[in-house]
């Protein structure tokens, strides 16, 4: 048996085209072939984006962690469906993360965990001038339905038709949820002042 000697884990094949776009394209091609290095690099680069997006929607670290893992585990299988330019990849990935978060919220497999912010918000009396609600902790106090629509609209930039499709609700319902979310947020933030 020829020696299977130690391999240098840092050795990389030389790139022909050094442009970032070409490098990204190669990386995605490698990922589609199941290359673990490519996946590891993407996890390092976009881990925060995916996890943060999911966390924002689920407001639960354990759920976010599980869903982020799901996204990256399935990424090699779905990346071949990405038809955009490499610059559009982060946005595409973010949309996948959103869908993963929504699936998590729908799945009923949510972890029974309450975020520290929401606990602080719950135990803080509204008239306590020393404790002001931040927008994040106020968001955590919204119902899942309202928070989801609010974040999809305000942060992720979906319109009501898209939100309706994503959540399986009517456009009017999406609009109503958004308005109610805003009203509740406004009241929570006002009360805390």
């Amino acid at each position, binding site marked *: *048996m*020829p*020696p*299977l*000697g*130690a*391999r240098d*884990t840092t050795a990389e094949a030389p790139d022909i085209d050094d442009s970032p776009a070409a490098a990204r394209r190669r990386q995605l091609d490698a990922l589609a072939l*199941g290359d*673990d*290095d490519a*996946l*590891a690099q993407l*996890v*390092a680069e976009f*881990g*925060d*984006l*995916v*996890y*943060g*997006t999911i*966390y*924002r929607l689920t407001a639960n*670290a354990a759920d*976010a*962690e599980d869903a*982020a*893992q799901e996204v*990256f*585990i*399935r990424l090699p299988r779905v990346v071949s469906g990405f038809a955009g330019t490499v610059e559009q990849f982060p946005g595409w990935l973010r949309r996948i993360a959103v869908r993963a978060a929504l*699936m998590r919220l729908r799945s009923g497999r949510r972890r029974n965990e309450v975020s520290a912010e929401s606990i602080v918000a719950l135990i803080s009396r509204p008239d306590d001038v020393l404790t002001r609600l931040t*927008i*994040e902790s106020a*968001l955590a106090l919204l119902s899942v339905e309202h928070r989801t629509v*609010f*974040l999809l*609209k*305000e*942060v992720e930039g979906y319109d009501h038709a898209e939100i309706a499709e994503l959540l399986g609700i009517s456009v009017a319902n999406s*609009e*109503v949820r*958004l*308005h109610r979310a*805003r*009203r509740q*947020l*406004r009241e929570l*933030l006002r009360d805390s002042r």
Partner: protein
Amino acid sequence: MTFPLHPTFDALSAFADAASDDVSQARVQRHVRECDACRATVAEIRAMGDAVRAMPLREAPSDLWARVAARRADDTEVATLAPTIGDSRASGAPADLPSTPGTPAAGPDAARGLATPRGKSIVFGATLVVLALATSMMLLSRTPLEATGLSRLAVSPARPAAGGTLIVRYSPAPYFRREPRLVLIGRVARRGERREAARYPAFDADSLATLLPQRDGAFVARLTLPADFRWAQLAVVDSTGDRMDRDGSALWTVVGGNADRSPSLEALMSAEEDRSPWIGTFDNHLVAGPRWSIADTIQRYFPGHPAGWAYYTRYGVRRGLFDFLRFFETAERKYASLDGSLWPERTLDADREHAMLVFAHRIEEPLDAAKWANRIAREHPDDRRAFDDLFGAIRHMQLNSTAGLADSMHAWLPLLIDISRRNASSLPVGGSTDNFAGRSRAEVIASLAQEFGDSTMKAAWPIARPAHDFIVPGTLPRSMSLDEERQARAQIADPCGRPAGRFSLSPGTTWVVQFCELVKSNLLASLSRLEAERGHASLALTLADSALRTTRPQWACVTSDAHRARARALLMLGDSSRAVLDLAVATGQSLAPPREADSLLATLGTASVRARFAAVADSARHAVQQCAQDRRQRNAAHADSARLGVR
């Protein structure tokens, strides 16, 4: 200017989102332009959006990649619960693919009315009862040694293709956490390769790669696999090879797949059958999942293949929920089902025939095993397993005193001889045949010929091994054949140190070196006796002295063979006074004192010689007892250090 009616909050909210030229918002726009309060509300609504967009994203956990890598490896092999094996596989879809949401399966349940609310409630109730029972049994029967959680070693891809790259990620055991680097060792099996059973523990593993520490505390190595890769058994050691981490009592096993990442039956079968005989035989878990074995994978991807059942190790209800569910599919029923479908087939490959034989052995059906062994021998006489299978079946029937064996042997014995002549007749008999394991095929045929053969057969296959001894003939049949002598001389010439790039997969380096020295010492004693038989007394004495000078491990307390060999040589040289001392030591160390000592003392029997003999024997006896006691204490200490990975 004031307005009697302000727009509602919802209207202002909608206005805040609308484009500036949205005519549907013209009325609200006019109001907001004039109304300070409503303008403030709109500004507030927009500010909330800005604030939430400005929120920094939460940082991902630092070990996200470690978890992804571990789950990726895990997901590839881990099957779903699937208590009804046939159902989940009928679609041909791997069980680890995500199910399509929102597409309820209109399967056979619906046809049976189970999709009705009442049917569902019945099924749900029954499921609860079964789960409750299963859980209670699992809690009662779970063994403390059962592996749980993820393996410390993760590989990616879990089913690597030949010629590809394997990334190995190791989460170190506590005793390895501070190591600057570790060594990934193992055996890499290639296509067409069959590893011979090693007689003694040896440096039987290659150093495959250096595991380097990462920021998150894990160690990572990248391994380029050979173009004909089949499977690998892996372990992690420190640079000395004395501390090892592996998958419990077994090694981490990685089985290669096809280029499209599908599992390879050939590789799975090879991994199941050709792994080392003393490591992992009873614990064939894959790296990808502590609960899922090679047999599980064969069951899952090749559901009609008997190997998935033949090598399956968890029938019954001893290990929890899965087995409880499998209780309804017992091994016997499965065997009968497979036998019914496979036996009538006109042509059947050797793999399936061999698997059916193994399965028959597993369920203690020696006649069925013999039936399949006979079929392999006739249809695939060139297959490497044909001899062991037929001899194993015969031996099994012998041990069970199965009626009719003698009649069958008239046909089987010539068949066995024919197979042994066809393929690799120099190979020793495999490990499944009790005390015949390791003997040559000629030897086992001779033993059967002497028991079952006619006079011609007995004459043609005599028992070749002579049974004689130098001083007391017949007591110790240890004389060497020429082949054994050649091997012994070669082994004595080989150094015992660990060769560069090689490690041991079972015991640690120190132990293997010590064992090698001990074997050398014993071989020297045997060669001494051989030379004595040949009349070379001086050479015999030299060899016996060498045997006694060889460094012996602390745990080897008895040197009686070497002392007896030297006594024998000394007697041949006429130095009976020194011979007495060696025999005294041999006597003191032996449970059954050598009879030659009595005859020698009777010849030389002065009182002083007898007294000296007794004193030396007593001293040797006490030394052995002390040595044994020390060994027990060391073993107890070793049990503690085993927790620290020291082998």
